[in-house]
Every structure is written in structure tokens, then in C-alpha cells.
């Protein structure tokens, strides 16, 4: 028996973006459209007056049930450059600890006439739940939910790769490290597959590679050197220190020895390979400083492009209403 077909929450029947919840299932044209729109905003950020009036009068609520100064700030900057009013709420510390349900919190904020919610939550699927319950015309952007998705990060990574490599259809891309717990990795994998990357690899110890990840269209490598061979793009993931507690890894030192990126290992990738990292980096755990600061690193441009990509997504959602 198959249950009633579940229409996409994030793309309307007209093909327009209603919410941005995940990169999975986003049509390739829509992804390209986001990246093209971001192109225009990169130039805005290079101007003296870094502001356009596209979202003037709109109220955008940053609702972070899980703390993250950096991601919240990038959304805030993006919204302000679009002339929106931004309200930052660190809900993790207030409502939910008082027993208010997630939906109550959202309904309360909606009653303050929010036009858009930027949501981060420790539970996978929380932004879907919110998107299902907001009023029509109110948009939800997932700023990271559990291990599930971080679509704006995934898209800014696509922007970065396109900027340096132009075409996706001939690329070999490796994602290295803690894929199991990484929402960034999942968002990258879906977007890279959508854009036609033919050789997508995942490298890590089997304790940190999720079950049946091959079914998402990736090849799994236990050995980093083998996995990096002839790569055009190397994406390092952040390793959180609590992974040592759950018996997933013996130590940060041993992880670095086997799966940390240093110049020697990077030499197995193509000479013009780029090195990416979603930040914040743990130098000496997943990446050596010489590589992080080296000529192949595009980690800081990722941050710059991130503002433009978030502006693109917000402007598309804001004007779709």
C-alpha cells in the first residue's frame, strides 16, 4: 500500500520556491536559478552602498533553537542587505525550556506578522513541521536541522564550486569526515547529484559513514589517499569533539592521522583541486593549517559567497509571495 502522495512542501505547483527546506528534490533549473541570482548579489556586496530595497518592509525572524552565531549572522547580513527588518531570537534559551511547544512558539511569532522564518533546530525535520503549519505566504528557510539538511550551505558550496570549476558534469568531488552527523554533507550530496557530478565520493571511518549512503549516489572510500585520487574538489567536514565519547573514534589525533587533510594527502588530488570547509574549522583535527591557509583553499570565499546565496534565496522567497 502506498500512502497518499505527499506533494513537495518547498516547491509550488508553479515550480516556484515556497520554502527552502532541503536541497533534495530541488529541480536543477531552480538550483541554477538560485546560483544565477546570487551572481547579481555578489556585485551588490562589492559596492560602497551594500544595500538593495528588494525586501523593504518585510520582517524576517531568525529563530534559532540551537545556537550558532556565525550562521545567524550571515542570514542577518543577507537580510539587511536586502533592506528587510531582522529580528533575532535565540529560542533555545527561552521558550522551549519553559515548556512551550515548537508550534506554539512559531504561532506566537507569526502573530507578530513575520514574513519569513529562518529556522535552526537540533531535530531533523523541525523546519518541515513549521512550514506545514505557517500561514500561506509565510516562508521558512532551513538554517540547519539535526543531521538532515543545511540547504543554504549546500547551495553556497555549489556556488563556490561553479565559480572555480564552471561545469559540474566532469567533476570528481570528495566529501571527507563525519558524514553520519553532517547535515551539510547531505545537502551537498543532493545538490551535487542534481547538478550532474559524475564521480561523488565519501571518505571516512565506517563509524561515521551512514548506512546505505551509496543509495544517494556516492562511492564510499575507507582509505583517504585512494579516495582523494584525481579529485577536483575536496570538501572537509567539521568533526565535533563529542564523537570521541560515543566510541565512534579513539581520538582526534588518530582521526587526523587517518582522515585529516594535509599537503601530502592533498597531493593525490588534481593539482588544481580546491579545498572547501563549511566552518568552523578544527585546525589539526580535520585539516592542517598549511592546507586551510594554502593556495588551494577557498574556505574564505565560501563565506563571502554565502551572503550572496542567502540573499538570492531570501529575495526569491520574499518576492514569490
Amino acid at each position, binding site marked *: *500500500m*502506498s*500512502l*497518499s502522495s*505527499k506533494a513537495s*512542501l518547498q516547491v509550488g505547483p508553479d515550480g516556484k520556491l515556497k520554502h527552502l527546506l532541503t536541497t*533534495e528534490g530541488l529541480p536543477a533549473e531552480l538550483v541554477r536559478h538560485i546560483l544565477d541570482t546570487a551572481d547579481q548579489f555578489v556585485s551588490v556586496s562589492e559596492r560602497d552602498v551594500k544595500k538593495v530595497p528588494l525586501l523593504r518592509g518585510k520582517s524576517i525572524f531568525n529563530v534559532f533553537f540551537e545556537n550558532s552565531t556565525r550562521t545567524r549572522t550571515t542570514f542577518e547580513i543577507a537580510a539587511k542587505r536586502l533592506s528587510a527588518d531582522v529580528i533575532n531570537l535565540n529560542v533555545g534559551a527561552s521558550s522551549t525550556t519553559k515548556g512551550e*511547544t*515548537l*508550534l506554539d512558539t512559531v504561532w506566537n511569532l507569526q502573530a507578530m506578522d513575520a514574513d519569513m522564518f529562518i529556522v535552526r*533546530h537540533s*531535530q*531533523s*525535520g*523541525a523546519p*518541515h*513541521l513549521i512550514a506545514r*503549519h505557517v500561514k500561506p505566504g509565510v516562508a521558512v528557510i532551513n538554517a540547519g*536541522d*539535526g*543531521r*538532515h*539538511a543545511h540547504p543554504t550551505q549546500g547551495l553556497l558550496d555549489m556556488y563556490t564550486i561553479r565559480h572555480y570549476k564552471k561545469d559540474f558534469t566532469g567533476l570528481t568531488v570528495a566529501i571527507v569526515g563525519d558524514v553520519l552527523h553532517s*547535515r551539510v554533507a*547531505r545537502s551537498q550530496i543532493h545538490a551535487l547529484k542534481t547538478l550532474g557530478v559524475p564521480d561523488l565520493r565519501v571518505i571516512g571511518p565506517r563509524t561515521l559513514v*551512514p*548506512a*546505505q*549512503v551509496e*543509495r*544517494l549516489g556516492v562511492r564510499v572510500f575507507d582509505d583517504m589517499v585512494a579516495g582523494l585520487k584525481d579529485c577536483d574538489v575536496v570538501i572537509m567536514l567539521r568533526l565535533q569533539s563529542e564523537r570521541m565519547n560515543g566510541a565512534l573514534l579513539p581520538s582526534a589525533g588518530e582521526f587526523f592521522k587517518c582522515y585529516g587533510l594535509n599537503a601530502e594527502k592533498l597531493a593525490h588530488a588534481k593539482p588544481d583541486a580546491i579545498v572547501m570547509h563549511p566552518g568552523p574549522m578544527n585546525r589539526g583535527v580535520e585539516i592542517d593549517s598549511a592546507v586551510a591557509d594554502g593556495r588551494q583553499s577557498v574556505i574564505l570565499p565560501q563565506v563571502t559567497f554565502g551572503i550572496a546565496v542567502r540573499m538570492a534565496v531570501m529575495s526569491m522567497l520574499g518576492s514569490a509571495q
Partner: protein
Amino acid sequence: MSRRGREPPAGMRIEIKGARLVDPASNRDRPGSLFIADGKIAALDKAPDGFRADEVIDATGLVACPGLVDLAARLREPGFEYKATLESEMRAAVAGGVTTLACPPDTDPPLDEPGLVEMLTRRAASLNAAHVHPVGALTVGLKGERLAEMAELTEAGCVGFSQGQASLPDTRTLLNALRYAATLGYTVWLRPEDASLAAGGVAHTGEVSTRLGLPSIPTIAETVAIRTLLELMAATGARVHLERVSSAAGVALVTQAKSQGVPLTCDVSVHHLHLCDRDIGEFDSNCRLAPPLREPGDRDALRRAAAQGAIDAICSDHAPVDDDSKQVPFGEAEPGATAIELLLPLTLQWGRESGLKLAETLAAVTHRPARILGVPGGTLTAGSAADVCLFDPERPWVVRREVLASQGKNTPFLGLELTGRAVRTLVGGRTVHELR
């Protein structure tokens, strides 16, 4: 419409005529009449001498079968009245054609004291609906530390002992619990799931949990537990009923053990015969179940094993949950689905799709679970209680919140059309449900 409390006059005689009479226990399936006197089945086909019906029920076009026997239906009392009440769930049971049910001990407090069990059975009996057989707590508070008073609980009416939805005790405590239960000849009902392998998981470990980024429960959580239990059964001689087998590998172990003569029975939840992890879709919390929905191949293996009889019974695993506990992110949602009213149509659908005869299909929800419970019922044999389900096998109906008598509206089947519905339910010859 329920007619609770309507006492039939002593010696009330009822004739049910025109029905297709199906009694799985005797492999009977042909039209005939059913004669009821003094709350019991008096005869089939031919009226006993001198029988004069006080009421004749015209059941033309309907199937008359034994009232359904459900091995797991949560009534939520005591302690969870905000999710459901005895009144609402007993109404739901008979609306679904269920006349006998076992309720798991995972109430609040759990059914670990004779007084609680007596109160529950007395309250349930006063509602004049389905027969309720509590399954007592195996350990005090379901904490897996101290043994509950099994002899006292049995005297109070418990038919077996279980951990409900709580984790299995550690292996040493489990060994002692089985050894003790074996001493007194009690059956232990256990959901095979290794606690440490399942810890924190909310979905089956596989492609879907990987895509959705959900902490997961691997199939080996089930197979490791089954292998451990088989060892413990061999060591103790205890009788074990395995609840809610969920995987192809798990059911293969059960089948193998049974072929070697291990005194093992097992059941499956009706959800697992129809759904798999793909149905979670975009985080549908109504598909958050325990054990988790597994892969299409697991579902298909469970369907086959149930059809071949390697799985003894199909149960609803009924778990009414309030909206507040479901309208939360998937991983925070309380597991379970309301299902007692869907048991019949979903079982019928499985039987049709498996090419089973109606009597074979209904065996999984009548006399086979009754045998596991160790109570009479589940059959239309002359002399047994007149617990009868009259259902229309062709009747389509759509699962909507307002048509469910259960207080829980949490089912993955909301909005779907099912075929087959109980039209009238009799318990002890008394009509306890009649569909408007």
C-alpha cells in the same frame, strides 16, 4: 452506534441468518445460520430443538466470524487519560469488531501491582464491551531491575508478563525473569530489541534514515535480541511470545527456531504488513512507530511469514496518542498509531493481496491469538461465548478523524480508503456495536 449497558433478558435467543459464516478454527466458510442462547453459541446451521428466536438478525451480504482477538491494544488507563480513556478505546475496539484484547502494561503507573490490574479489569468489565486481559509488568515500574509479583498479578487476572514499550532488562535480569516465570509456568511476552543498539534511534537504519538524518535502530537490534532470547529460553525452559517482529532477518530466525521445536510464538503489527520506512515521506510523525517501519523487503517477508503461519498473529499494536505528542519534530514524537478500528480492514487487505482464503486470513486475528492468550474465544464452536463480528467485506470507507471512535487520531492511514468494516459486534450475545 454502541449499545453498552443494554442488558439482554436472561435466556435471550438470537438467530443470525443469511450470513457467510466463517470460523477459522474449524476452517469453516459457508453460508449458514448462527443460533445464540444464554450468551453462548448454541448451534450452527440447524436450530437446536425447541429454539425460538427472540431476535432475528438478517445478516445477508455480511460475514459472521468470531469477534477479533487483539494481542496489543493500549487503553491508556491509568495515567494517560489525556490520550485516551477506557470508554473511548473500548468503544473503538468493538467498532473495529474486536471482542477480546490484551492490554500491555505500559500505563502510568505500569501494571505492576495486583490492585491496579483488578481496578482495570473491573472498570473494563463494567463497560460491557470487549473482554480485557491485562499483560502484567515483568519488572517493577518496567524499569528492568526488580521482578514484579507475577503470581499475585496472575491471580489478579494477568495473562502474561511484558516490558511493554520499555526496554528489555539487561541479560542477567532477563535470565532471572524467564527462570522465575518458567517455574510458575507463565508466558513472557517480549519485544525483541537490544536496548543499547536501539538507544536514541527513531527510524530504521537504512537509506531513509540516512536521507532524513534521523538517529536510527538497526535490524541487528532485533536479531541480537532474538538470538539472546533463544539462548535464554533454552537455558530456562521459559515460554516466550515475541511481540512485534519487524524485520526479514528477525522473522527468519523465528521460523528457524520454530522448525527446531522451540516453543515460541510471535506476532506482527498490522502496520508492518502494509508500510515501510519510505512511507515516512517528509517526516510524517504518524509513521513514527516502535519497532520502526523497516524496508520494503522486510515488509514483504513479514507478509509472507504471516501468510505461511510462521507469524502466529496480527495485532493492531493500538496506541492512541494526543495531537500535542505528535505535532512535534519526528524524533520527538511519541511512537505509536491508533489502529484497533483498522485491524480488520487492513488484515482483510493483506489476506486478499496474499491470495489467502478468508478463513486463513481471519485465523491471524481470531483463534490463533486467542490460543496465545490462553483464553477461550476466537471461535464459533457450539458452546463458546457468542462473541461475534458481523462485517461487510465489500464496504469502502475513508479513514477520517471524525469516523474514528478512538480518542487517538494518529494513523498513517488518515485520508485513505479501506475496504471492509464491522457492522455489528456482539459480546456474549449482546450487541455492543452497531454501525449507523
